[in-house]
């Protein structure tokens, strides 16, 4: 059931990891968020998801993380089809969503140490991860006592404690000040220079080179008008 295609790019920098999607479709209730979505992502590249609120950016990221299943279509990891059942890509990806995934009662260090152990990372990366996000001074504070931007940095530090080839970032700049946005840009650039990949949903320019994918291009034409019972009554 488990899907173990290749080693991490950090352990073997020449690994040719690729991610391809063919005719992906995602449905929420009666409405298709997107359909016929194709893209391909090579190692060392970044895909930037664009589109207005509700266009399916988060849904696509969760779908890539294996948190939900596509309505139709197929994902390929290094050319191999990802089986729809089973763990999928889950052990190849990091997903940083809107919520931090950290326990408010635990300190920054305790939270990150848990994720390092749980996600199969090394605890000796902990110090470097704290440093990379300028969290050393906050390391012993409970996460619940931190500001929104500081909590966001803690959840970004999880990307570094357990190296994984594909980063899925959902609005990673939210609540970050400009210094920390630059820090984030640097982290993403280092990640892809080492052969990693990233799919990023964002509304603010990140200053990284990446292919743009606008989800509006894959919206089925006006289909939701016909199916939405609330809109139908308005005529």
């Amino acid at each position, binding site marked *: *059931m488990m899907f173990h295609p290749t080693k991490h790019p950090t352990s073997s920098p020449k690994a040719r990891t690729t991610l391809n999607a063919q005719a992906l479709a995602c449905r929420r209730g009666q409405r298709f968020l997107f359909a016929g979505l194709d893209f391909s992502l090579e190692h060392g590249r970044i895909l930037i998801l664009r589109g207005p609120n509700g266009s399916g950016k988060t849904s696509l990221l*969760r779908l890539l*993380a*294996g*948190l*939900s*299943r596509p309505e139709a279509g197929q994902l390929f990891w290094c050319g191999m089809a990802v089986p729809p059942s089973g*763990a999928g890509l*889950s*052990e190849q*990806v*990091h*997903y940083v*969503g*809107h*919520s*931090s*995934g*950290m*326990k*408010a*009662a*635990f300190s920054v260090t305790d939270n990150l140490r*848990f*994720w390092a*152990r*749980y*996600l*199969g990372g090394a605890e000796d990366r902990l110090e470097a991860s704290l440093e990379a996000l300028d969290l050393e001074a906050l390391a012993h504070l*409970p996460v619940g006592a931190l500001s929104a931007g500081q909590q966001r940095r803690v*959840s970004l530090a*999880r990307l570094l404690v357990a190296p994984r080839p594909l980063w899925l970032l959902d609005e990673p700049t939210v609540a970050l000040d400009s210094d920390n946005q630059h820090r984030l840009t640097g982290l993403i650039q280092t990640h892809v220079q080492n052969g990693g990949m990233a799919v990023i949903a964002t509304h603010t320019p990140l200053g990284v080179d990446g292919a743009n994918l606008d989800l509006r291009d894959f919206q089925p034409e006006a289909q939701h008008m016909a199916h939405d019972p609330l809109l139908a009554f308005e005529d």
Partner: protein
Amino acid sequence: MLAAFFSLILRDMRLGYAQGGAAGLVIAFYAITISLFPFGVGPDAEILARIAGGVLWIAALLAALLSLDRMFQADFEDGSLDSLTLGPLPLSLVALAKALAHWLSMLLPLVILSPLFGLMLHLDGASMRVVLIALLVGTPALSLIGAAAAALAVAVRRGGALIALLVLPLYIPTLIFGVGAVEAVSGLGSVSANMSFLGSLSLIFAVLGPLAAGGALRLALE
């Protein structure tokens, strides 16, 4: 995979005793519920000793229930559950680890304290030993059944009442054999037969509970 499993158990046990954790609450609830009975049925030692087995068991069921609703909900709300699915464990093993942590941090202290409360209810030495062993063998089923119900109600606001409705009927067999073991000390039936049933219930739900919980969590994430 084993390292992830044990680190999750350890984290959840620590959470139970951290600020905002439910472990202290559960133990206090257990103590207060039991101490209500001498007030309710009177201080007659004979009557209290007769109902003591049932009282200890029912208080344990209710105390277990009290702490179930947050078993997965906290992780669901703060996004931890998303990241837990990205580790090496399938969701059913995540559920098993969390159910074990629930038992170790919430119910095992109750089991250890139960002789103290047995004393308060005038339970004699032989029965006390049986109660202690019966609770030790039977209470894992409470956490394991509870895990399935807590996973089903994970996305429900105020899911506590829903969990109680789902879980209490499933607790009845454990209650029957748990009390049966204590009654058997005074001659009604066999202690070991009741113990065997308790043990088998815990083992059956060690398989069924996490599997059901894993499926329910998968649905909740979509």
